[in-house]
Structures are given as C-alpha cells and as structure tokens.
C-alpha cells in the first residue's frame, strides 16, 4: 500500500474541468514529481488532495485512510503538509510567528532545535525574524514558506513550485533541502517548472497536461525521452 494514492480524481472550477481523472501514487521515502505546462492542473491536484478543493469524483487515500473531501485542517493534522504556490504567508505576523504557528499539530518537543536548523539553513530569515512576513522580499517569503512547512514535521510534504522566484544560489539551496528532507526519509510530492532540477532529484515523475496524466516513469526514463526533453528541459 502506497503512502498516498490518488485515484481517478476529477475537479471542476464551475464549468471548467481542471482535472479530468488523474491517478498516481507516492510511496514511502520517495520523491515524486509532477511536471506540466502552465495551467495543466498541478496546483489543482495538490489543492484537491489537501482539501482546499472538493473533487467531483475520485478518491484520495493517505496512509490507508480515505481522506477524500476532508476539510483542509483535518488533512493537515495528519501532517500531510502543503507549501502552497505563491507562498501564502501570514503577512501581518512576524517571521518567527509564521514559523511556529503550525507546530500545534506535532508534539511539542524539539521545536527549538528545528527552529535553529531552519535558521542555519536560511540565515536571512534569522536576520529578519521580527519583521512582518508581508514585507519580506519574494525570495525571503519563499524560504519562510518552506521553513514553516518543515516546522510542522510533515509525513508527506507537498511543494508547489518551491523554487519559483528564488535566486540561483537559493534554488540550489532549496533542492539541497529537498534532498536532505528526502534523505531523512520524508516523502515528497514536488510540483516544479524547473524540470531539470526536479528530474535530478525525483524517483518517479508524472507529466500532466490539461488535467490528465500523459506520461509517467522513473526520472531516468523521462530524462531520455526526447519529447520531454524538448518540452520541459529547454
């Protein structure tokens, strides 16, 4: 049994059919990547899994439990954590508060330790720890969003374009963090435009197009697929 099993998921925005029945899974310890053009439905997929959107049909199972249609806060309590596209910080809270606000879903121990880890990884956040999140620069916000999710000790981490808007140095940093998270055995569902890096780190890849999965395979398989190469690797 896979950690996350998505089956035949269909989601609409009013009359727009954003997902037309997609199925995939994430196994323990894996990094699974969803790639696809703009508007393919990647964010919709993640949002449906977390419960921000209700599917029209299909099912989502997490750790063997059917969580289809659960509210987002219930899903999150299972420590199925999403780092949403566009950062979605609490703009009027400080960096520090943003980092700690999600920790209520885990047990209290070692929070300080984790915090220290985050600050060593993102010294920039440490410098700005009392600043309101809304006033951070784009990149700083992205770091904070990832940091916040890590503070929640995810069982499965879902990252929606985490490298968007980051300086090259930080993009490397983020992928390094992803690698580290992976090394810690935390499974990851990664949505990325930076397909080159995503494919480097992924165990398994699904390619999404207009609400459907059009291709899938291990990272190596796809890296050698000429169609993928031309479409996503530039």
């Amino acid at each position: 049994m896979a950690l996350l099993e998505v089956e035949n998921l269909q989601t609409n925005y009013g009359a727009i059919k954003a997902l037309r029945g997609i199925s995939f899974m994430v196994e323990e310890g894996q990094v699974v990547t969803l790639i696809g053009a703009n508007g393919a439905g990647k964010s919709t997929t993640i949002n449906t899994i977390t419960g921000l959107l209700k599917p029209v049909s299909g099912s989502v199972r997490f750790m063997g439990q059917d969580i289809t249609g659960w509210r987002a806060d219930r899903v999150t309590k299972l420590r199925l954590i999403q780092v949403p596209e566009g950062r979605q910080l609490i703009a009027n809270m400080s960096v520090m508060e943003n980092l700690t606000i999600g920790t209520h879903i885990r047990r209290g121990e070692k929070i300080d330790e984790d915090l220290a880890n985050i600050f060593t990884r993102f010294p920039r956040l440490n410098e700005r720890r009392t600043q309101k999140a809304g006033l951070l620069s784009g990149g700083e916000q992205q770091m904070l969003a990832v940091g916040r999710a890590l503070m929640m000790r995810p069982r499965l981490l879902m990252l929606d374009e985490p490298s968007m808007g980051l300086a090259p140095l930080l993009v490397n940093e983020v992928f390094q963090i992803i690698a580290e998270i992976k090394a810690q055995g935390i499974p990851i569902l990664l949505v990325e435009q930076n397909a080159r890096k995503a494919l480097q780190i992924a165990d398994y890849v699904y390619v999404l197009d207009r609400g459907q999965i059009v291709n899938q395979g291990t990272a190596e398989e796809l890296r050698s697929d000429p169609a993928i190469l031309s479409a996503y690797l530039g």
Partner: protein
Amino acid sequence: MESIFLQQTVNAILLGAIYALFALGYALVFSVLGVLNLAHSAIFMWGAFIGLLAVEQWQLPPLLALLLGALGGGLLSVLLEFIAFRPLRRRNAARISQLISSIGASILLVNIAQLLFQQIYNRTEAYYPLDLVLFPGMSTETIVLDDIGLRIQPIRIVILVIALVTMVLLQYMVTRTQIGQHMRAVAFSERIASLLGIPVSRIFVLTFFLAGIFGGMAGMLYGVAFRKVDPFIGENVALVGLTAIVLGGMGSIQGAVLGGFIVAALQTISIAAGGSSYSNAIVFVLLFVVLLVRPQGLLGQPENTRA
C-alpha cells in the same frame, strides 16, 4: 471650577468604560472576520433584555443574571455566525454582503425583541428594578466625596473594573495564547489557516461566542447602569462603538478600548465646554483629523503589503 472639572473627568471615564466594553466585541469579530457585524448592537440589546428578564421576571440573583445576559449574548452571537455569516462565507460572497446579512439579522433580532416586550410588558420598554445591587454587599448609595466635590455611583465603578479586566484578559488571550494566534491566522486568511491545521470553523464559532459574551455583558451592565431597556438601545451605541473601533484602529483590542474612552471624553469635554448640541459633531471632526494623519487609526497597524 476645579470640582466641576474633576466631576466631568469622572463622568467621562465612567461613560467611556461602557463604550469600551461594547466596542470590544465589535472589534473582536471585525479583527477575525474582517466583517462588521452590525448585529452586534442587537446582541447588546439582547444581553440587557435577558438580564432584565432574569432579575425581573425570574427573580434570579443579579450576578447570575449578568452571567445569563453574557451567555445569552454569546449563544445568540454564535447563532448569527451560523445563520448570517457562515452560509455566505461558504459561498465566497463579498464581505459587503455579510455586512448586509448582519443588518438583516439585526432587524430580525430587534423585531423579535419588540414582539417579546409587547408580550411580556405590554409595551416596548421596561426598567431594571430601582435598587438593584449587582452582588451582595454592593451599595447603591452614591459615593459622595464632598471635600473634592465628587459623586460617583458604585455601579459605574464596577463597570469600569469589568471593562478593564476584560480588556486585559482579551489582550492576553489574543497575543499570548495559541488560540489567539490561531484567531489571528484565521483573521488573515482562512485558506492559509486551514493549511496550518487550524480548525477554522471552530475558531469562528469561538470568536463569535466571545464577542457575544462581551456584547451581552455590556448590554446587561448598561441596563443596570441606566435601567431602561427597550428593543432599540443597541442603536444608541452602534454608531459610538463603530466610531470607537475605527478611531482606536480596527483589529486592535487596546484600540477599541482607547477609542471608547476617547469618544466619551470628547463628548464630555464638548458638553462641559458648553457645546452640548455639537458633541457628536466634534467627535466626528476629531475622528476625521485622526484618520487623515493616521489612516489606520490610533493603534492600528499599517497595511502589510507591498507592490
């Protein structure tokens, strides 16, 4: 001259306490929902009404009545969340439609109260008993401090103390406790809050409950202080409360309290200076000036957004 100044100062502080208490509940709902709950003044009236029924019809001890007034306010407020706010939020309606639904709810609550008044009292006003003491041992005698020319009613001091204690407790809760942090997160965005595992619906219910408690309590105390209760007493404080929270800075707890006191002080000062006809105009002119200098109100936070 000195004594009149002192007396007027005391008048202002005591009036301010009532405004502040009412404004607190208003501010709480606004800061979490970002919506003005115009039915809050109806909750206020119901608090006074329930308290009145408790002491007058059911002959309960006044403290219990206060509790009932507060609790009744809380429950009604939660009811409002369920019938007037939640359905609209669920459908992503514009905030302004929530404002209108709160007006609808308010009309409903006031008119139901009017029907009940008519049923129970055969007219639309009623009075708290003349010699009501809030708790055993409390005096109803005016405290006279003749050497400094000051007269204070004990009940008003009680109201002042309750308002201040409430403010401190609420402030502590919102800034220092996890519940408070969650409330602020929900206030900022339900969507983000839910992604942080915060039970959004429960936070809303809690917020409404607390706000209702403050509203109901303020109403009951107002009733005890001024004794007359009718279905429309909420209208007397609605605009004052609104002014107070805007002046103090929306979403700020201390701001609401500060605003309440400032409005009362201004009204009193303008009356003391011989301008009783203009007291409300003066309040608004000052509000105007404050907003021009500090568009976010006295203690409000500037917007945390950037281009």
